[in-house]
């Protein structure tokens, strides 16, 4: 083990310190020749010049010797790789037109994919949704609605599937922190709501079950952004008072800066939800979520809740007659993302197509390029280059291209991601999507794959042919023969023919994506101006007061 480790470090030293090693070797060789010459002078009485000549002859070719020594160091493959890389860079610089177009195509493909990957990774694969469900009432496959106090209390008391359940009621309020009241989104939540989500305040305390009792002093957890807006600094927000719809609440905690929405509902403040003892089945309006217990699944929870529905609903039949309704859990991920999540999925498919087109395009360009270099490659083969060596040469070239493409792609991806966040559909956490380490690794993986495909594809074409006639043709005519030109032209045509349907497919997908996000509401909404006013129920009790306003 240590033996191998030592040899490996020696290999790397041999590669990294090649010049030092070569110099040491040269010293050793010089000494050898010198001593040999002196020995010859002594034993055979040769003149110094002649002795040195003889010594050199005896030694053999110094260059060949150095080569052999490099072989013994076991770094030949690494040196060859470097040689291939230099050759590839030189070749690519030699034809800037090809290189620039190939790199830009790859940069677009890899960039777009990386951007969408980051978005999907952040939004669709958000681990925060794992094990969470939202509970709806459902009486037909498409008719789902919210829960009432009765339902929530029954679930709290009787469920056996969840480690935590919580309720949220959201709405618009008039909010003031000493100054002018302004409209804000409020999410009244129970203690279990935060516990189920696994979210807690960074400062102060969270909502406790005692805060939920009707008549307990009103308290609220507030979002970081509101804390900074209202109090200038999040650190001195705890203990201050805010007025929500005319009721003074004490701030007990501040949420982390990156949390602006919970379970897909955005709000600036999160007061404790105090549920009055229900007298009838309604009103509904509660968003109820649950965290699945250790051995529970969505399916088992569904049965649990169905049984619960059958026990509870008859008790309240007087105020609610629908007998087919059941409490039904859905994965919170589906509940929150819904159609927008599907759109993002659609978008990923479109972008994957774009990447495929990019790789196909560059592979075709490579093929055209390699066909143009047929004579060079034939010559190399005749001179003894093995197929593996040729493959390595071309793959190194395409990998170099792909690597540059990936670097540019990461830059493109970062721009594309910003554009996606700006114009894309509203999705929770989408604005948090960043090009992180995973995205870079993704881009690198794509580049590697693309490089291998692009390099191997032309070689497969090339190796199938007999190379000798190509060489002869090359000898007879300077540059490419007429037939070769025809073939090359054919390839270009074929390339376009292949990529057009792909491009059309991607375009159609993008188009349907845009249409989906811009469904015609059926009337012209441009001249209509809506104004919403929130009236605090404490100052405007009853419908008559509201209509007077």
């Amino acid at each position: 083990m240590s033996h191998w480790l030592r040899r490996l470090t020696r290999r790397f030293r041999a590669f990294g310190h090649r010049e030092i090693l070569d110099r040491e070797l040269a010293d050793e060789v010089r000494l050898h020749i010198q001593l040999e010459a002196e020995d010859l002078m002594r034993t055979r009485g040769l003149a110094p010049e002649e002795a040195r000549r003889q010594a050199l002859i005896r030694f053999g070719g110094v260059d060949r010797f150095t080569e052999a020594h490099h072989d013994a160091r076991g770094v030949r493959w690494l040196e060859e790789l470097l040689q291939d890389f230099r050759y590839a860079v030189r070749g690519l610089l030699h034809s800037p037109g090809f290189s620039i177009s190939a790199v830009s195509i790859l940069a677009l493909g890899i960039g777009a994919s990386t951007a969408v990957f980051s978005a999907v990774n952040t939004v669709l694969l958000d681990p925060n949704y794992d094990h969470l469900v939202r509970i709806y009432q459902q009486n037909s496959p498409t008719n789902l609605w919210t829960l009432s106090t009765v339902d929530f209390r029954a679930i709290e008391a009787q469920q056996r599937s969840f480690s935590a359940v919580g309720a949220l009621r959201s709405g618009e309020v008039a909010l003031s922190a000493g100054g002018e009241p302004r409209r804000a989104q409020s999410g009244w939540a129970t203690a279990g709501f935060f516990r189920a989500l696994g979210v807690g305040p960074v400062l102060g305390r969270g909502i406790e079950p005692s805060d939920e009792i009707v008549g307990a002093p009103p308290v609220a957890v507030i979002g970081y952004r509101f804390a900074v807006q209202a109090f200038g600094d999040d650190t001195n927000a705890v203990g201050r008072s805010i007025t929500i719809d005319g009721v003074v609440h004490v701030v007990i905690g501040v949420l982390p800066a990156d949390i602006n929405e919970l379970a897909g509902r955005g709000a600036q403040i999160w007061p404790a939800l105090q549920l009055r003892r229900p007298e009838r089945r309604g009103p509904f309006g509660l968003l109820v979520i649950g965290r699945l217990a250790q051995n529970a699944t969505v399916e088992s929870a569904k049965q649990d809740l169905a049984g619960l529905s059958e026990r509870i609903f008859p008790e309240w039949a007087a105020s609610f007659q629908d007998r087919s309704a059941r409490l039904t859990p859905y994965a919170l991920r589906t509940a929150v993302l819904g159609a927008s999540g599907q759109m993002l999925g659609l978008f990923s498919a479109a972008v994957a197509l774009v990447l495929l087109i990019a790789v196909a395009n560059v592979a075709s360009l490579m093929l055209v390029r390699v066909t143009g270099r047929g004579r060079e490659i034939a010559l190399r083969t005749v001179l003894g280059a093995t197929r593996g060596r040729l493959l390595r040469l071309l793959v190194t070239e395409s990998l170099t291209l792909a690597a540059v493409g990936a670097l540019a792609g990461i830059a493109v991806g970062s721009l594309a991601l910003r554009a996606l966040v700006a114009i894309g559909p509203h999705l929770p956490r989408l604005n948090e999507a960043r090009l992180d380490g995973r995205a870079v690794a993704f881009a690198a993986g794509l580049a590697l794959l693309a490089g291998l495909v692009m390099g191997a594809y032309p070689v497969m074409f090339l190796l199938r042919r007999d190379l000798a006639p190509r060489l002869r043709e090359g000898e007879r005519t300077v540059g490419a023969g007429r037939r070769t030109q025809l073939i090359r032209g054919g390839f270009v045509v074929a390339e376009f023919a292949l990529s057009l349907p792909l491009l059309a497919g991607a375009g159609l997908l993008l188009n349907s994506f845009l249409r989906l996000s811009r469904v015609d509401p059926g009337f012209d909404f441009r001249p209509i101006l809506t104004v919403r006013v929130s009236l605090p129920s404490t100052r405007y009790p009853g419908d008559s007061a509201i209509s007077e306003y």
Partner: protein
Amino acid sequence: MDDRADLLQGTLDLLILKTLVLGPLHGWAISKRLRQLSDEVLDVGQGSLYPALYRLEDQGWIRAEWGTSPEGRRAKFYTLTAAGRKQFAAERSQWRLFSTAVEQVLKAT
């Protein structure tokens, strides 16, 4: 050149190890000693001596250090390690087995 024997594959390592059993030597001295000990029959091609030395060092059988030669010159000296000594003993017995066997075959009439 024709009166000199070509070295059998693998025997060079054994010979180099043998020259180093008596003490550290530098590259030229190794080749000189091989020539002397074999009455000028074995002349190690220098193109294979130094790569072989590097290989042996790689295996951990010899150690190289820069020092000063008896002629007062800076030279790289090769020393047999403990592992090298063991390797030498193993290779020597193997060689003896092999050469006796070959000799026996050739003697048969």
